[in-house]
């Protein structure tokens, strides 16, 4: 039923209330950009560029265990210190990679990313629980653009 007031009159009203039941799975990238502990550093740089991400997840080969992550700055530091011949395990940062469940509320998750200054979340889900995808700043931005 069309209203007498077109969308030009109230351009933003429909979206003013955030959707309460939006899960993280709606905005995530359904693929984990990952490498193993033994992947060469230059290969990590190449794969990061191909996948178009800013952080690579480092996982143990043949398992879902996350060992750490490599950001662009980690790579740049490795280059600056002349460690390009090494493996992913030599340059990765060992801080725990933040995770979020695929069924979590997207609004709350975005709020958490903002407050804790998280650039990339690993989305876990399924039974048994395993990494399903990632939610990066770019994914949030592109979700904002298409919603």
């Amino acid at each position, binding site marked *: 039923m069309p209203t007498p007031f077109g969308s030009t009159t109230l351009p*933003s009203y429909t*979206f003013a209330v955030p959707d309460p039941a939006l899960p993280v799975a709606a905005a995530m990238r359904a693929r984990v950009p990952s490498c193993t502990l033994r992947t060469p550093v230059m290969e990590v740089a190449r794969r990061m560029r191909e996948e178009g991400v800013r952080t690579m997840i480092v996982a143990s080969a043949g398992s879902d265990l996350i060992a750490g992550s490599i950001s662009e700055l980690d790579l740049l530091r490795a280059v*600056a210190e002349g460690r390009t011949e090494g493996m992913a395990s030599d340059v990765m940062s060992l801080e725990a990679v933040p995770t979020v469940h695929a069924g979590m509320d997207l609004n709350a998750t975005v709020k958490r990313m903002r407050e804790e200054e998280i650039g990339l979340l690993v989305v876990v889900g399924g039974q048994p629980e395993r990494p399903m995808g990632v939610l990066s700043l770019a994914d949030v931005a592109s979700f904002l653009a298409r919603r």
Partner: protein
Amino acid sequence: MSPAQAVTPSGAPTAPDRPAREVMRNGVVLVDADASVRAVARTMRDHGVPAVFVVDLSAEAIGVVEERDLLKGWDDPDRTTAAQVMNLDPVIVDPDEPVGNATRRMLELGVTRMLVALPPPSEESGRWLDWRERGLPLGTLSVDDVLARLEELEPAVRRRAVRSGQATGRRVAPAVAVASILVAIALIVLAAVLFFHGHPVNLSPGCSHPTQGGC
């Protein structure tokens, strides 16, 4: 400041390095200060850029919006404007600054993106403190721009960082190991001296009997 000269104080010719203007992502995408956060997100998506510049009515750049800043407008993306979420103080790099120098600053500051803007006119440099006075930026220099051309830029990036002392962290470990070995040797010698004190060691057989005197 003249960064191009500051890098080579000895004046010696250095390994091939490129100025920032040759490696940067050329050109900028502009959005209006009153554009909504959703419109900014769409602009980023349509142009494939991770950062846009916010201009005011007189088309002067007044800020930068990156993907991270979009999160501030998540709750109401149609009413929050670009001016409310923009970053007013981005990191600037001169177009002629060598990339090795720029990447070192990125590591020091922990940023992944820099604005490439023309330096202010030298005769008035005292007055041009604000980056906005430099006019519209020429482009952006991101870490991925550098990583994408790593084969070519690696010598420059590595040489500068090592010279500035960035890589000294890994040389502490051998020094500590050597020092601890020396301390261990000193302790062994000290223990030996205390143990044999008053008991002179005579290695010649037949000369050690106390009543028969020396040999």
